[in-house]
């Protein structure tokens, strides 16, 4: 079953169109990676799904319900959680308090403080530390943990590895099998294409707000991806 179906999506910032008639779908339990260069529309797409960027045209259906006009916090209650670009950890709260904020919807599921700590040792070690005192990698892990605390059915991970040291990226991705193993559907934006290909069931490459390439990692090759990524025919 399709958990999320996006048809003909248009998103504008003022007169700047960031997304053009975009189609995207993701099946329940699937991991889809969205890749693309700066300005491709990746973060805008995530915001549109989370309700943080209003769409001007097209449809976003979640569990066969149109959600274009549903408020962001209602979408969280419906099971859509976003780890935003820049992580947006509450700086004046401890890691544990940040996680508890994520649980405010009281959705039932496998994720709670102890399961998040088990999945992310990095977060567990820092549970009493204030958000302001976290490294980039610790922030990212805590932000993913916070999103999981809402027990989402659809987890949106924006720019997972951007600006993080390779060893930290590895630790964060180590938790992904546990997340998907719990049945959570994952839509992730990743600037490291190799990383995206490693973890995703399917990859969709955006170019200037449109889909330039879509497929399973095993059906793609370096030339196809490079030409889609750069828009070279």
């Amino acid at each position: 079953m399709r958990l999320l179906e996006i048809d003909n999506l248009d998103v504008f910032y003022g007169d700047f169109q960031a997304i053009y008639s975009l189609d995207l779908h993701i099946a329940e339990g699937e991991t889809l990676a969205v890749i693309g260069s700066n300005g491709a529309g990746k973060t805008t797409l995530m915001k549109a799904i989370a309700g943080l960027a209003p769409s001007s045209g097209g449809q976003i259906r979640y569990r066969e319900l149109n959600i274009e006009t549903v408020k962001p916090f209602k979408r969280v209650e419906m099971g859509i959680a976003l780890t935003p670009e820049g992580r947006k950890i509450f700086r004046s709260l401890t890691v544990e308090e940040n996680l508890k904020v994520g649980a405010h919807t009281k959705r039932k599921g496998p994720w709670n403080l102890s399961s998040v700590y088990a999945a992310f040792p990095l977060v567990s070690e820092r549970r009493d530390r204030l958000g302001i005192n976290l490294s980039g990698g610790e922030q990212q892990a805590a932000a993913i943990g916070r999103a999981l605390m809402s027990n989402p059915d659809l987890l949106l991970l924006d720019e997972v590895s951007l600006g993080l040291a390779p060893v930290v990226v590895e630790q964060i991705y180590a938790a992904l099998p546990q997340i998907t193993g719990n049945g959570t559907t994952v839509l992730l934006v990743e600037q490291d294409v190799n990383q995206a290909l490693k973890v995703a069931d399917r990859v969709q490459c955006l170019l200037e707000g449109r889909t330039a390439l879509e497929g399973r990692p095993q059906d793609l090759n370096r030339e196809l991806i490079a030409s889609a990524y750069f828009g070279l025919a």
Partner: protein
Amino acid sequence: MQNALEVKNASKRFGKVVTADNISFSVPTNSALGIVGPNGAGKSTLLSLITGVLPLDSGSISFEGRDVTTMSPGARSQAGVARTFQIPRPFIDMSVFENVYVGAAFGADKHGKRGYQSAVQALEVTGLIHLADEPARKLRLLDLKRLELARALATDPKLILLDEIAGGLTERELPELIVLIHNLVAQGMTVIWIEHIVHALLEVVDQLMCLAAGEILAYGVPREVMANPAVIEVYLGSTFDLGNAS
């Protein structure tokens, strides 16, 4: 062919961050150089080094055969170097026309009627003439980008540095911009264009440079640069290898 610009062993660092690491390159007069590179590669900083807004830590820059390394930004502007900014920076309380007139008056030393003519011409070329009397603060993003270009053109530049001016243009507007930049080169200008819309860049530029972490990763024939494995790697990830992926 004479070089409009010669950059020799240019270095610039901010604390630990190296944005230009012993960079050398030259741009022939009346040609177009494209610059690509991932975030933080040092692309915009390089333009600031060329305009003189940022001083070099070491190295030299020559413009039209003349060493401008210690020349002020204002003097470089009057000598014929102009740039646009990725994030438009107009004088928001002045009209569109006045913004462009500032370029003509202070960049090209054209005052009064000559300055007006220059400003009007720049507004016509960039398709902004119908907004000439609007305050700059009222402009939409795309028109602000056009205003950046109009202000730069009004200074009568010989070398124009463009910082990501194609982002956000529509399918109709992008070809217009490409024609416009072609025309600048045809009129004798030298162009350096930073752009992440690679296919637009490749329609215009004679040479392409890829910067990464303050170093020139590749330089040369545009399509060859884009096919260079090292260039693909900096964009697509550190260990791009489909053998690992599947």
